[in-house]
């Protein structure tokens, strides 16, 4: 091997090692943040709760174990699911502006939730069920429509179908908002649309765990393959892949967790759009690293935003507002930083 190659080797080892260390660092940061978040809150006073208090105060223990823990775990799932799905969608659709809910999933969920609030009452479980149902309906409709569209390739057809189905549901949502009782139902719809994890309990967390766990596991296992599936169809085929069925598996594995977390948390914007960008800034585009990085970053970000949403004011700040606000700031900061690429 030539001198150039052995030099290349040293650099490749160094870079791969480097990326692993950053991933480990992110994971460690996530664990630390998780533990700290478990202790932070507004009981008994704004600030951190002490171990001593947890061991002595029954109420404090219940609060930490039955309210904060499921809520934090859900925030973790929310952030990592949306970010992983966003990474997958952006790669498969070859479009960095795509976010995971765009195949009719977000708008479908919103429509389902509003439908429930207007006609079936505001029970949290019922809203979640309807949102999940219509999220899946949105995806199914998009897929069926894409199969009938006679224009463009597979990717373009799905995008077009997703846009059409989303528009349909958002029109329906408009009708429901118009019909809703402006004093009782309309605020509830608006609040759901802003997103949040305030009513999170163990059963609700457990209800989304299977779908998210399975989806995320599949995505993690396929994470290198995603690079190949992002190529044009005939090129992916020439490398021994079966582009259409494999992409479908990836899409379903990305959409299921998305639909699940949207159904409990409402519209939490920006996470799925920008976390993949930040992950690519830090790790490059190889999804072997970008996908786990996006999941860790998403988890960190969602937990951080949720902490702020429940601690800063005595009342909750809707999570969607915080993710958009903080997300935009972080995003602009990272994209304009001249040092952003030095880590790669």
């Amino acid at each position, binding site marked *: 091997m030539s001198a150039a190659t052995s030099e*290349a080797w040293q650099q490749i080892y160094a870079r791969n090692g480097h990326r692993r260390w950053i991933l480990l660092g992110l994971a460690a940061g996530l664990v630390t943040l998780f533990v700290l978040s478990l202790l932070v809150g507004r009981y008994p006073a704004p600030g951190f709760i002490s171990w001593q208090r947890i061991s002595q105060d029954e109420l404090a223990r219940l609060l930490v174990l039955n309210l904060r823990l499921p809520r934090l775990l859900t925030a973790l799932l929310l952030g990592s699911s949306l970010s992983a799905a966003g990474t997958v969608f952006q790669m498969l659709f070859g479009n960095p502006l795509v976010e995971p809910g765009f195949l009719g999933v977000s708008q479908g969920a919103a429509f389902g939730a509003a439908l429930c609030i207007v006609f079936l009452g505001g029970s949290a479980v019922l809203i979640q069920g309807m949102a999940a149902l219509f999220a899946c309906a949105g995806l199914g409709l998009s897929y069926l429509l894409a199969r009938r569209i006679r224009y463009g390739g597979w990717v373009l057809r799905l995008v077009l179908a997703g846009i059409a189905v989303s528009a349909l549901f958002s029109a329906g949502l408009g009708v429901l908002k118009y019909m809703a009782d402006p004093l009782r139902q309309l605020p509830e719809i608006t609040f759901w649309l802003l997103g949040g994890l305030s009513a999170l309990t163990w059963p609700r967390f457990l209800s989304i765990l299977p779908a998210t766990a399975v989806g995320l596991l599949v995505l993690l296992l396929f994470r*290198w393959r995603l690079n190949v599936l992002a190529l044009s169809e005939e090129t992916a085929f*020439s490398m021994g892949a079966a582009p259409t069925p*494999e992409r479908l598996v990836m899409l379903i594995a990305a959409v299921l967790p998305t639909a699940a977390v949207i159904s409990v948390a409402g519209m939490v914007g920006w996470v799925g759009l920008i976390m993949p960008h930040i992950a690519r800034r830090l790790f490059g*585009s*190889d999804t072997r690293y970008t996908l786990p990085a996006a999941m860790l970053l998403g988890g960190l970000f969602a937990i951080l935003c949720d902490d702020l949403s429940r601690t800063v004011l005595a009342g909750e700040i809707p999570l969607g507002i915080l993710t958009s606000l903080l997300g935009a700031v972080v995003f602009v900061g990272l994209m304009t930083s001249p040092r952003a690429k030095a880590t790669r």
Partner: protein
Amino acid sequence: MTTPLMTFQEVVFGYNRRGRPVIDGLDLALLQGSITAILGPNGAGKTTLLYLTLGWLRPWSGKITLAGQPLAGFSRRALGQEIALIPQNETHRFEHTVLEYVLLGRAPYLPPLGMPTRTDETIALQALERVGIPYLYNQSILEISGGERQLVLAARALAQEPQLLLSDEPTSHLDLSNKFRLVNILKGLREQGATILMTTHEPDIALAVSDYAILMAKGRVLAAGPTQQVITGETLSQVYQVPVRIVPVEGKSQVLWM
């Protein structure tokens, strides 16, 4: 004596069942260790022929064989290990490094859930060396020149360690120096035993590198055989409907037109 690596017998293919076939009763053989160039006007079916060879398109009727076996009998992964494609151009939207990109060529050797190993990375680096750009390995695919990108695609195909290399218009976006480089790379690969099937719009390139040439028009083969016999002033004039002459200059054949 060279043996055919791939044969086409009476192959018929079209994109629309109700329409006219694009490839109509095609017979041909690709000899092991040779470079074959497909020439013909736009719409002659050159790229379609390439995709049939790849197994991406399936013929309506007729037989295609690879190493004596029916092409349809190969699994996708086996095909990926035997045949590699250098596409004409590829849209790059994300900033993979050159090495990460070339590493994708190892996909046919990995199970769907697999990750490339150090061996795969070595093979990818060697592929980059073979096309003469190992120093680019850590550059972003978006930051290198168009000519270098074409070489990266070639390296990715080489990382597949294929028997047969398909190349769609390998020189169409290249400047003179990169054309020269690519021609030499193709010749070098032939020396190492590779079989290459390429489409081209440039009779010069076909004359410079190919052993055999296939002249196509409207889905049919007009002439096929050793390049010097196939690419002549008469055949080119007939296919492209413009007066073409081929003149020997300094021991090489030059194509004159206009």
